[in-house]
């Protein structure tokens, strides 16, 4: 658990403070120095417009990590509300909510996100919307499952008898029980969001230039694959490292959760 927290702090630090270490303005165009390899002046080289790759990489953390955080949080809120509504609402509500969830789940996430982002027009807003609306379902299922099993617990019945409003019951008795499982789901979704953002960026939807999002950087790098192959290594590595770190955290969390419940 401790390593998880350390890692989380590192990420947050990276996203918030990383750009302070950036030697250059990530959008500063510098044509004479374009497509140069790693050097003392530009540690990771420059891209086709002469922008410093290291700086873009550091600023990019804000986009890739920050947006992923936002998206996964939105999904968490929507999904938990939906799942709890299904668990609390009685058979008909449950059926409707579950069929709706299934309907959304029928579309592979990335394909749906591509369609939505593409149709809404490229941009950060469409990106956030597209990825949020294709990711809430997993939380909903978990929340519903746990909610249903909690409904018959003695203390939930007591709370209802005492006259607690459904909202208060949810807040005091359901949510605390949900937190461990939801956090595990959330780490997985956070990682997926990072991959999704970069994938959409790579396809040209999502975060638009000159914003230094890692996927968009890979799109730029692809064009110059033959001339400056190194350019494409860095953004990809950044994505892979972050996702790997989050997945490892998620695994550790899941293991500690299993230990606690058994």
């Amino acid at each position, binding site marked *: 658990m401790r390593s998880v927290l350390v890692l989380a702090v590192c990420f947050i630090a990276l996203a918030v403070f990383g750009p302070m270490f950036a030697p250059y303005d990530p959008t500063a165009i510098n044509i004479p120095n374009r497509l140069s390899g790693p050097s003392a002046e530009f540690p990771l080289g420059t891209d086709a417009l002469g922008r410093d790759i290291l700086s873009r990489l550091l600023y990019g953390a804000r986009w890739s990590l920050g947006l992923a955080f936002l998206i996964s949080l939105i999904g968490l809120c929507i999904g938990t509300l939906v799942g709890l509504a299904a668990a609390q609402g009685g058979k008909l509500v449950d059926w409707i909510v579950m069929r709706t969830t299934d309907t959304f789940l029928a579309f592979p996430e990335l394909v749906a996100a591509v369609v939505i982002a593409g149709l809404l027009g490229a941009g950060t807003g469409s990106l956030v919307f597209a990825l949020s609306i294709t990711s809430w379902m997993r939380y909903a299922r978990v929340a519903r499952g746990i909610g249903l099993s909690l409904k018959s*617990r*003695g*203390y939930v*019945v*007591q*709370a*209802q*008898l*005492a*006259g*607690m*409003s459904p909202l*208060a019951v949810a807040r*005091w*008795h359901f949510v*605390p*029980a949900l937190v461990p499982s939801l956090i595990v789901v959330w780490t997985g979704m956070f990682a997926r969001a990072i991959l999704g953002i970069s994938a959409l960026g790579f396809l040209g939807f999502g975060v638009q230039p000159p914003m230094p999002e890692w996927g968009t950087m890979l799109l730029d790098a692809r064009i110059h694959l033959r001339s400056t192959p190194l350019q494409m290594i860095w953004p990809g590595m950044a994505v892979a490292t972050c996702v790997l770190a989050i997945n490892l955290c998620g695994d550790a969390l899941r293991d500690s959760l299993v230990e606690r419940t058994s």
Partner: protein
Amino acid sequence: MLSVDRVSVNRGKTLALADISLSIEAGKTLAVVGESGAGKSTLIAAILGLLTPSKGSLTWSGAPVRSCRPALVMQEPRAAFNPALTLRRSVMEPLVARRANVPDDRLSRLCKGLELPTDLLDRKPGEVSIGQAQRVGILRALIDAPPLILFDEPLSALDAVTQKHTAKLIADLQAEEGFASLIVTHDLGYACAYSDDVAVLRRGRIEESGDSSAFVAAPCTDYGRTLRDAAIALGGLEIAA
């Protein structure tokens, strides 16, 4: 006064309760006895408003029972409490829900009556013994001074010595607080010793009902007689000489 009038409850295709009528006055105790599956839990759920009867009415002094905020003491003491919250927090829940206040000394007075050290309430459910947990459950039921308290097998999770003790505490508190109580139990000895009236439930119907001592002396039905004799044989019931 609790009035259950010709109540029937359907559970799926079967009739869990059929044409049940009973009544309890303030300060009195009715014990409902029967085997497993007789419908005792369904009766409790119906009275508490947790399910709707297909026929009949359940009222307290003419109004729906829910309006008098009846309390429930459960069979499994620890299940009645959220394991993550302190006992104090759980006990106060009925008051918090109603945004009500009670006199400061009520809590300490009740704790004394239930022989619970007040610092016990700052522990979590897992940190106290079963006997203590059940007494806290009773405390919670009493805190808002409801006129009616239902007891669902309140002693079955406790050991024999604790059973006797807890039963006495409940009776003493009832004399003090004046609530009506309905005790559901399969223990005929307990039922007859601590209740004014007893009703025998079998397969959703009331076989016989009436004054407890009268029942013990001379049950009206064969089934009642079987139950009584079995209870005597097991040693839980003694007939007053």
